[in-house]
């Protein structure tokens, strides 16, 4: 079905409990007409990849503010690729220093959104990239 709704998994990996951003994003994506599945807190990379596969999502949004992004994000990307989800967008939002952004992208993260990003920009990004690839 070509005009099915875009499906997005919003995920909180690691021990960090700051979910304000994740919940605001989840609601904004829903308001923009997407199907959003929120994983809840403290998901391991394995749990996130399994949920992405099971829910057959077009994009995975990882919210992370604890500084553990270099450990957790590449693992999620690899697990998704291993599961054959090569076209799934992987987006990261949170506190990520400049110098880590390039390496995260090299490892397969599609985009990193820093604090202050408007939810509209994220909606636009997902719309453009999912449609382009789908």
């Amino acid at each position: 079905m070509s005009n099915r709704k875009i499906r997005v998994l919003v995920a909180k990996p690691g021990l960090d409990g700051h979910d304000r951003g994740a919940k605001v994003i989840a609601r904004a994506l829903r308001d923009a007409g997407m199907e959003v599945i929120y994983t809840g807190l403290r998901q391991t990379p394995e749990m996130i990849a399994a949920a992405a596969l099971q829910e057959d999502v077009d994009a995975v949004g990882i919210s992370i503010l604890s500084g553990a992004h270099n450990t957790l994000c590449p693992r999620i990307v690899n697990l998704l690729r291993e599961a054959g989800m090569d076209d799934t967008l992987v987006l990261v939002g949170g506190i990520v220093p400049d110098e880590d952004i390039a390496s995260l992208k090299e490892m397969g993260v599609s985009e990193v959104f820093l604090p202050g990003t408007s939810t509209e920009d994220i909606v636009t990004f997902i719309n453009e990239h999912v449609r382009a690839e789908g």
Partner: protein
Amino acid sequence: MPDTKEQQSRDRAEKQRWEEETLKPVIEKRPERKDSFEGVSLEPVERLYSQADIEDIDRDAGIGFPGEFPYKRGIHPTGYRGKLWTMRQFAGFSSPEETNRRFKYLMEQGQTGLSVAYDLPALMGLDADSPLSEGEVGKCGVAVTSLADFEALFDGIDLEGVTVSQTINAPAWIFLAFYLVVAEKQGADFRKISGTLQNDILKEYIAQKEWVYPIRPAMKLVIDTFEYCTQHVPRYNPISVSGYHIREAGATALQELAFTLRDGVEYVQYGIDRGMDVDSFVPRLSFFFNAHNDFFEEIAKYRAARVIWAKTMKDRFGAESERTMKLRFHTQTAGVSLTVQQPLNNIARVAIQALAGVLGGTQSLHTDSYDEALALPTDEAALIALRTQQIIAEETGVANTVDPLGGSYYIESLTQKMIDGCFDYFDKIDGFGGMVEAIEAGFPQREIQESAYQYQKAVERKEQTIVGVNRYVMENEISKTNILKIDESVRDHQLERLQRTKDRRDDGAVANSLERLKAAAKTNENLMPATIEAVKEYATIEEICVALRDVYGVYEEPAF
């Protein structure tokens, strides 16, 4: 007073006259910048506040005097003329040795109290070697797994001579045990040591979300610390009831105020239910509020907090001691207001927020560092933050007189609005049966989520300005701020010490101490003594938490 009503209608008539004669012709010629003006909490703000706006205020108590019930103008009659607020910078990163060095540095620079930030594994009751801790050890705070780390953290710091605040919640009672055991080893007298344990588990379920056990056993552990400290460590504050995280999660100023104070009421009720006298333990309960951008609203919030607490302790719980009624609080500037964009602008934000805390009469203050939207602060950034407080204290003159904004039409009117709004929330929460029940029903969580979303929308519509983010944006911004990188080797360093500790300790004694702890949990006795014994045997945080998990279970967040 027979002429009060007459005076009131004269005040209103005067305001109307001004609106007609002076305001109207000006507005017709030149409209205001916007149709309506709103602050950070998205509450409408009037054009002008005058005598007419404060007529209904608290006629029995009026604005009152500092040091007198209900303490709107402060709990001390001399304000900051007697003693300045405590400058207490929150710090903690990497290994205990690194943080110990930062503590000593801050104290050399004139800081007057310590405040420890622990890493996420510690906050969650996990050891450094737990698989779940990977990537998180020493990142958001200092890594602590057993008493051995705690000994390194406070090496050369006299716990009888300095007050230490510890930001730890779900496993807080273990950290109280660490603190007491280290103090004892230093030869400190329990009756002389002071400090604060955050230990506010309710706001974890509401906002910060670092929990271990379900709510009710978690409340039991909190009350255990109240009881233990009242008996053995009388100058210690066993809790810092915290609005800070509630606000950071997106609450408005009023929601922060109401949920925090109602959390406080819940702790008092549970303490009384344990059999303690209200005047025996409530004087040692302390509070912790956020200082956000909306300057006057923040000041009004702190003034309102004191009034609500004093009245509630007196009317609801029959408190007789003034110490029970006096609300003491710590303030931290709003981390959530700091921007990654043009980060030096954060220095200005922090200064203004800190000033609000001071004008609101805070007992202690943390000023955020300008680089905290990027990472944990560098030495340089942490120093500027401390200097900001020193400038407010010693250069601006605001500490020279008590409650300098008392009597301002706007401040008084806003303070009253906060008080009324807070009591409305109390009624709603009482309607659930209490705060524990309200949290189980998801009430405060939903209120906060809604406010967070509305605020984000207001920012995106540019109704709320964030300089450098949605206005005055610089495309090619030059921001090569040095940031603190946490060396990944900290985990290995911590694992080595953990291994050494485990090699040296008496495993049989550890196992026995954990069994005694479990047995104590099953019979519902106060767990502090058994925890102190386990800590002395170098049982780790996770071992202690797991032992009790068998009795208490784990918390699963309901989906909202």
